[in-house]
């Protein structure tokens, strides 16, 4: 670490074509990186000023995470230059970057699951008395931090017991607590609700006021327009454009990211409520969800909205046979089903896109192909043997349809970018030919282009006489896609709105 710091040279920034009027906290040019000979990043560039929130935009697999991991010393670049406070640096490890005032919230959360929240936050810099950790101070500090950030998390809870959303908040708190000058946030809001996002934005604004520079990655353009002041766009591993948010509109930004014109999403046609495809009756489980009854009609997309921890995911998992319930009946087109295991659900034609793609969505070390067909192995086999040709054709079709950016169908999904992994989860569910699709945050981390593909698919899927139950914490998404919205509050149904009557205010009002 010492070596890296000593090895800095002073560089004339004007040579590199940077403006030197403002304090440049961090700049990088020509950063490149390939994996197994496949380039992931060809020309990564950024210039981050003090007190700026800089949005890094790009489609799934554009190389954003790769680039940010390189800045942080988590990956080694193949080439390129990085300048920190006017000096050329190259970090061999995250420890060096941390020591140099850079912190990151990585896209792939990787907490130490068996440690407490406080221990996770102060990992590697535990408050100490001599050689000993000062646990009391650690917990007190963590509590103070959560109070300041207005996050409602128990500092002494064990990480394993938290929801993905809570883990994401812990990760955010951890990065913020480092009080670094440069803060990298790789999709910090993909797992959390609107309310928590708002709290995060407040925190970001206050950091900004203290002169911290923030690199912010998100596929939620609304977020970007509400907090970022400048942007950089990557496409297919290359730098495309950089500028001030004030100088660009949403439409053009999408164009830059996607690299093609996107047709506007067609508003969903009004439709008559017909017979129910799936009906859930009296679902309860402890206090997590209580007495939930709902049904989804043929051709309908039913949205489930609620604040973080409202119990939507728990309910959906119970419906799918993937989680505990104390009571509850399921009827599919009027016949009662007994669902004790996801295989029962799948056999009946119910598929589910789970919320936590790493935890119970994907088999990370398995290939893209194996994951996509995993739910529908029977269909691609005869007498127990896989039919390779049919299987590959189906997989290729899915890769094509959702533009999964992968070097090959044999690549392990753990090597895909976050958004592309999510597309694989979605593809796997579709491949089971369901008549009911339960989607828990289906577009988490997915870029604008692919989102539209998914929306179009859902709309089309429903129109073919199927049913969709869509859980989303993104209000615009749910407003644009659902025919009817049920709102959860503390494990109970707080109300129901039709597409026509639903507005952002109405949803938030019902949910809190």
């Amino acid at each position: 670490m010492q070596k890296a710091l000593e090895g800095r040279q002073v560089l004339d920034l004007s040579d590199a074509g940077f403006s030197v009027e403002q304090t440049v906290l961090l700049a990088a040019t020509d950063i490149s990186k390939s994996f197994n000979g496949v380039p992931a990043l060809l020309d990564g560039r950024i210039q981050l000023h003090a007190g700026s929130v800089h949005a890094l935009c790009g489609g799934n697999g554009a190389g954003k995470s790769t680039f940010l991991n390189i800045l942080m010393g988590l990956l080694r670049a193949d080439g390129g230059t990085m300048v920190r406070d006017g000096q050329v640096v190259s970090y061999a490890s995250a420890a060096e970057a941390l020591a140099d005032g850079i912190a990151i919230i990585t896209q792939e959360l990787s907490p130490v699951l068996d440690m407490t929240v406080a221990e996770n936050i102060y990992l590697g810099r535990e408050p100490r008395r001599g050689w000993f950790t000062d646990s009391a101070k650690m917990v007190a500090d963590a509590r103070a931090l959560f109070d300041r950030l207005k996050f409602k998390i128990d500092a002494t809870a064990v990480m394993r017991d938290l929801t993905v959303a809570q883990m994401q908040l812990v990760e955010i708190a951890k990065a913020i607590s480092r009080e670094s000058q440069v803060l990298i946030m790789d999709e910090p809001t993909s797992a959390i609700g609107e309310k928590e996002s708002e709290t995060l934005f407040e925190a970001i604004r206050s950091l900004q006021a203290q002169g911290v520079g923030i690199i912010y990655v998100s596929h939620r353009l609304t977020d970007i327009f509400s907090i970022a002041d400048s942007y950089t766009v990557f496409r297919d591993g290359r730098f495309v454009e950089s500028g001030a948010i004030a100088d660009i509109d949403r439409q053009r930004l999408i164009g830059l990211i996607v690299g093609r014109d996107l047709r506007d999403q067609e508003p969903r046609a009004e439709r008559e409520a017909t017979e129910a495809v799936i009906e859930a009756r009296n679902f309860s489980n402890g206090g997590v969800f209580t007495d939930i009854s709902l049904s989804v009609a043929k051709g309908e997309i039913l949205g489930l909205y609620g604040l973080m921890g409202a119990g939507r995911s728990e309910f959906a998992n119970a419906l799918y046979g993937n989680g505990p319930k104390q009571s509850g009946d399921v009827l599919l087109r009027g016949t009662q089903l007994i669902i004790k295991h996801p295989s029962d659900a799948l056999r009946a034609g119910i598929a589910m896109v789970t919320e936590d793609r790493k935890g119970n969505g994907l088999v990370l070390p398995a290939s893209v192909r194996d994951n996509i067909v995993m739910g529908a192995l029977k269909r691609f086999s005869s007498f127990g043997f896989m039919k390779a040709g049919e299987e590959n054709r189906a997989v290729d079709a899915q890769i094509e349809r959702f533009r999964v950016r992968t070097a090959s169908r044999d690549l392990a999904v753990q090597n895909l970018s976050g958004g592309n992994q999510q597309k694989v989860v979605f593809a796997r569910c579709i491949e089971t030919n369901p008549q009911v699709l339960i989607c828990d945050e289906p577009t988490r981390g997915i870029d604008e282009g692919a989102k539209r593909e998914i929306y179009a698919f859902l709309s089309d899927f429903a129109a073919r006489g199927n049913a969709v139950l869509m859980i989303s914490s993104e209000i615009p998404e749910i407003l644009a896609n659902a025919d009817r919205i049920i709102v959860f509050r503390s494990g109970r149904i707080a109300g129901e709105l039709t597409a026509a009557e639903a507005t952002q205010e109405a949803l938030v009002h019902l949910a809190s």
Partner: protein
Amino acid sequence: MVELAQKSSEARNARFGRVVSRYGIVLAFLILFVILSFAHQNFLSTGNITNVLRQVSINGILAVGMTFVILTGGIDLSIGSVLAFAGIVAGALVTGADPSNPFLAVAAAIGVGALFGAVNGLLVARFKVTAFVATLGMLSMARGATLLISDGRPVPNLSADFRWLGQGFVAGIPVPVICFALVFVIAWVVLRFTIYGRWIYAVGGNVRSARTSGIPTRMVTFSAYLIMGALAGFAGAILTARTTSALPQAGLGYELDAIAAVVIGGTSLVGGVGSVVFTLVGVLIIGVIGNGLDLLGVSSYYQQIVKGAIIVAAVLIDRSRNAQS
């Protein structure tokens, strides 16, 4: 168009990179093989190759079973004892004046092995006992049971028909080698081309995701131990036929060799990654080291040192190729 072309060449590169890195252990084996061929003129003789293959077949059969278990993220320490128990059972059936049909004895050995495997499988899959503890307990229990039923003494005088299983030849190939080859090919086909194979990998890769995809994860885990047990029973029958009596102390420490073969072959102890083909390479590396050092007349003390060093070196070669890519 350009993009597409570029992508497919990328894909080729990616595949190539992966292949090279995974063949590091094959390379290590080839290096070892070539060195030994030069070091001793008889190493490459038909006699010796036959020899080596026959010697590795027991560990080979066990290692194939162990590949199933380790792929699901488990481990089975009990196989040495289960092998001994099954051997005694087979031996008891074919000893004395009125020996049973040897096929019956083999079937009994396989059945008994499968039974032990089923207990392991139940403990692990149903009762969620850590595989290490469950099978360690079974190691102790099966050995005790073996000694008990045999009263600590070998079962001698096995019928010649039965001994053929360990000592016979078919078309110049030793019967144990044929058995191993069969087991290997079947395992390879099952793991590579069947639904069940996909299940095994999925369960080992992420049991919760496998469940979400509708895979009967408990059953799959259970079955891996069942297969392992059955193969340990089969290996027990062959070993008994080969040593001409059923020995209650047979198979001591065999679990370590089987696990080593699997792990040297690069199958991850965490589960979900690996292949029975590389297990074969691991089995051959271990077998060839032992054979080669015996041929070269390396003394007992040095043999252990050299053997350990070669195993580490082989994996280092594998690793360093991996790191390059």
